[in-house]
């Protein structure tokens, strides 16, 4: 609250009273909705304790939830590593001095950013199965990883590119002016800073990937969502099972989001933050200083987050 708000003046006593009233109203509305839903759920028998207690048995955890979680994390981990590689390769490709490389990278990245992940997953799965590309039990994982890698790799490629672009121009020039060659400058000055600037967005992208592994149920990949379906089948409690798995997804992803935020503030404190000098140069300065970090993070927010499912 100490940061000045664009929208609101510091509240006076009347404003504070109004806020208190709104607070109460807001809470009442929420409580009302929750109560209505709970009542209806109870009427439908979805709140019967037996449906829920089975979710906290050791059996469900050791046979469904944990294995599903492992599969989810496995697919996510492989995908993020491959996507990083893909992203850095094509991101650098888009920054290349060679026009053809730039052009090809551009088309690849734009194409895979435009194609829905689910569509890609359906296709790669069938393609791998029909052509026996991998072992059958690997095909679903392969399809999930392929689709996630191509899509998120393309997003990361854009992050790399915009990360490098968003650095103050002076960083490159300072590198050149102490006698580094352009490629040395890219490697030891621009890329490290772009990667650190990207880091929060990258962690954010991890959330996207983790969430998108859930699409893997469509190709029978036994991840968390599939685990929820299996629990629902075995214990006849699909709705509680899905709600419970949703909670797990939310907690994990939220934790990652928090990590991303921490990373960001940490980085800001150390380096990326607005520099005193630049701020003094005035209006133009004030705008451009925030742009680098906001640029990347912002990019992350909407390309990353929104394109997620």
């Amino acid at each position: 609250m100490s940061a000045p708000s664009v929208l609101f003046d510091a509240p006076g006593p009347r404003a504070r009273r109004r806020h208190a009233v709104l607070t109460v109203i807001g809470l009442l509305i929420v409580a009302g909705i929750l109560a209505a839903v709970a009542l209806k759920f109870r009427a439908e028998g979805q709140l019967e304790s037996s449906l829920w207690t089975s979710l906290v048995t050791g059996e469900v955890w050791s046979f469904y939830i944990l294995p599903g979680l492992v599969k989810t994390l496995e697919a996510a981990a492989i995908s993020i590593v491959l996507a990083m590689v893909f992203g850095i390769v094509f991101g650098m490709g888009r920054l290349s001095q060679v026009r053809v490389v730039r052009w090809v990278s551009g088309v690849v990245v734009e194409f895979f950013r435009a194609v829905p992940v689910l569509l890609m997953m359906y296709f790669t799965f069938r393609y791998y199965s029909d052509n026996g590309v991998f072992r059958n039990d690997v095909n679903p994982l392969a399809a999930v990883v392929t689709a996630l890698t191509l899509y998120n790799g393309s997003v990361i490629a854009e992050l790399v590119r915009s990360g490098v672009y968003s650095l103050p121009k002076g960083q490159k020039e300072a590198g050149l002016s102490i006698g580094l060659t352009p490629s040395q400058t890219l490697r030891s000055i621009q890329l490290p800073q772009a990667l650190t600037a990207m880091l929060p967005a990258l962690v954010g992208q991890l959330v996207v990937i983790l969430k998108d592994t859930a699409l893997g149920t469509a190709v029978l990949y036994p991840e968390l969502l599939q685990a929820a379906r299996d629990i629902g089948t075995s214990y006849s409690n699909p709705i509680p099972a899905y709600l419970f798995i949703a909670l797990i997804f939310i907690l994990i992803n939220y934790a990652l989001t928090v990590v991303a935020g921490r990373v960001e503030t940490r980085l800001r404190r150390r380096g990326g933050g607005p520099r005193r000098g630049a701020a003094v140069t005035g209006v133009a300065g004030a705008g451009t200083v925030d742009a680098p970090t906001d640029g990347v993070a912002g990019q992350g927010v909407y390309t990353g987050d929104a394109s997620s499912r």
Partner: protein
Amino acid sequence: MLDIFEKYAVFSAFWMTIKLTFFSAIGALVIGTVVAVMRVSPVAVLRRLGAFYVNTVRNTPLTLLMFFSIAGMYYILQLNLAEAGSPTELVDNGVRWAIVALAVYHAAFVCEAIRSGINTVPVGQAEAARSIGLTFTQSLREVILPQAFRGAIAPLGSVLIALTKNTTVASVIGVAEASLLMSEVIENETASIGVFLVFALGFVVLTLPVGILFTSLSQRLAVKR
């Protein structure tokens, strides 16, 4: 590869994709704006609720939301969005609840896009507005919102593109859109690259103009600082 156009209703599947996109975009815009207002309001509880909405929805797989929407809302809570007893009750509910799920989900991103639009407005603009004596509503209307809106165009464009692609998730509850058709086609035929390209390019064709339009709009309307 082209015979799939004769054998399957490719265009009507994409028409469903377009309808899903259109209506859920409107829904997402409405809900997202409300949540954004909550998130930037001076009332702590509303801000928290808004943040809770965004954090919850954004971190839930859309597949799950899609399922909750039809199974939880329609089948358990029995909120019927179509005419009861009509011969298309199920299909209509499927489509409409898919739209609701898509709208609810993307509202979280719309909210963040709007917030980032507001963040593009330097605090100095608001302070200047206050310092010449504009009231809260006046400074909002005359100074802040016109600039915030322009700053939000580009991120909103990204959300719309994501939304278009995410309509494919409606296939998990059996809504007959493009990706469901593709999965049917490759089930019946073989998984040829050609079939994939037809559908993939369909999405490129849908999203490309949106991207170009929003980029040029945001550049044309950009507030020069």
